């Protein structure tokens, strides 16, 4: 009895650890395999003729369409044009949103004067403004950038505003005791304590920026990813349309990952 109990101890202590590691990996593996299986089924269904290719082309054909666009340089051109639209819109709208949010967060006066009209403009669906924007600014780059800027500014405005209002007042009191100037308070208290929530606003803004761009590029564009997709529609190139959509998705995921990395850096003191 005693001997078997002693033997059982090392076994009991290693197997659960192994089991736990396997269980941990198992779920990760299943999550990885699931979309791959789906992709395989799609490819197989296309090869067997179960999926009509003029409705949904096989994954291999979509990859080929992508390679074609990369090789003839159309993708690079489209990415550059669409990228510039998003970046300009983000900077313009982001600057406005953060600046107004900061001013409103710091001053009751600015809040009382600026916040009501901001809330009213926010109630307008910005994509619904497209006809107006076209009439006012034509169909060039400006209306697209302005639409992105408009969509981007509100999440940043709201998040910056509430982030600044949530700064711990005890830190301001401490700053007063230490003799901080306004600029020092801004740099050492307001910016770092507001940063995490402002970055949440940046993530929301990025999602809106891509969405706005997609819609704006569908309606009138002679270059960019949206033009690529629209053009493909005229030539019944479903493979290119799907590839364009995947590019939009990858851009969204990629930019979100960049902001998440910034978030981790802004919060590294909490580790």
């Amino acid at each position: 009895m005693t001997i078997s109990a002693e033997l059982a101890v090392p076994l009991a202590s290693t197997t659960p650890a192994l089991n736990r590691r396997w269980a941990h990996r198992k779920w990760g593996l299943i999550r990885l395999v699931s979309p791959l299986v789906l992709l395989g089924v799609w490819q197989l269904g296309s090869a067997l003729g179960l999926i009509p290719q003029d409705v949904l082309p096989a994954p291999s054909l979509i990859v080929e369409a992508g390679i074609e666009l990369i090789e003839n340089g159309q993708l690079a051109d489209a990415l550059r044009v669409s990228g510039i639209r998003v970046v300009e819109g983000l900077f313009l709208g982001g600057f406005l949103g953060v600046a107004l949010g900061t001013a409103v967060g710091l001053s009751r006066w600015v809040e009382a004067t600026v916040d009501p009209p901001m809330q009213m403009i926010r109630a307008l669906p910005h994509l619904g403004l497209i006809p107006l924007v076209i009439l006012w600014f034509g169909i060039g780059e400006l209306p697209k950038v302005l639409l992105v800027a408009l969509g981007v500014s509100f999440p940043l405005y709201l998040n910056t505003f509430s982030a600044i209002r949530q700064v711990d007042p005890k830190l301001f009191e401490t700053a007063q005791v230490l003799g901080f100037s306004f600029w020092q308070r801004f740099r050492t208290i307001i910016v770092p304590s507001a940063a995490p929530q402002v970055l949440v606003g940046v993530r929301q803004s990025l999602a809106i920026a891509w969405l706005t761009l997609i819609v704006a590029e569908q309606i009138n564009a002679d270059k960019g990813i949206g033009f690529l997709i629209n053009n493909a529609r005229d030539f019944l190139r479903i493979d290119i349309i799907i590839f364009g959509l995947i590019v939009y998705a990858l851009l969204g995921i990629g930019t979100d990952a960049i902001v998440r990395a910034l978030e981790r850096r802004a919060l590294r003191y909490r580790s």
Partner: protein
Amino acid sequence: MTIASERQTVIVGELRDVNKWYGDHHVLTDVSVRVGRGEIVALIGRSGSGKSTVLRVFAGLSSDHTGEHVVSGSAALAFQEPRLFPWRDVRTNVVYGLTRSRLPRSEAQTRADRALADVGLADRADAWPLTLSGGQAQRVSLARALVAEPELLLLDEPFGALDALTRLSMRGLLLDLWREHGFGVLLVTHDVDEAVALADRVLVLEAGRVVHMLTIDEPRQSPGAHIDHYRAELLDKLGVQI
């Protein structure tokens, strides 16, 4: 001139006949408090007696009071909670105690490191404040208050949030630093034992008035000191039945 009389004569901080209202509520009534150089004065009272308000007046955090407020030289304040900036490392937090001194950065950092060594935390200078224990964080707060070598140290229940053992070692640390640097201390507390263990004089505050003053003649923290009658006197003045 004896040490005791020098302590009484060179004043580093004083309030004379200070009155303060919050609306209709008379929070401080004719409060006069004097702290001499190298003297430790404890201000004791129940919660709501106005003792923290007295400290805020001393620290310049109050504007709407009447009466005279004189602080010769520099004063520094440490709060009950450490109030460190969590997104700046420990050394930078201590450097902030030198904001008014306008020293070059390298000089400020050297002084901050020295102040951290004084409180026994030289090895944590690069740490994030959130990785410190409560006692360590309060020591950083003390280092931040002392780095500018103030003549008057204002302490608002600085050890109140710490566990009993840490509190005892913090008292010892405070006395060590006080012996080394000779600053005057105004200590706000509700802990009678702490007041008796640390102070030269104890003022009892009740409903915004100084109702009693007690001078403690026993040497600090000497074993077998006869402090029980001081405790009893203070508890009696605070209205505590034992």
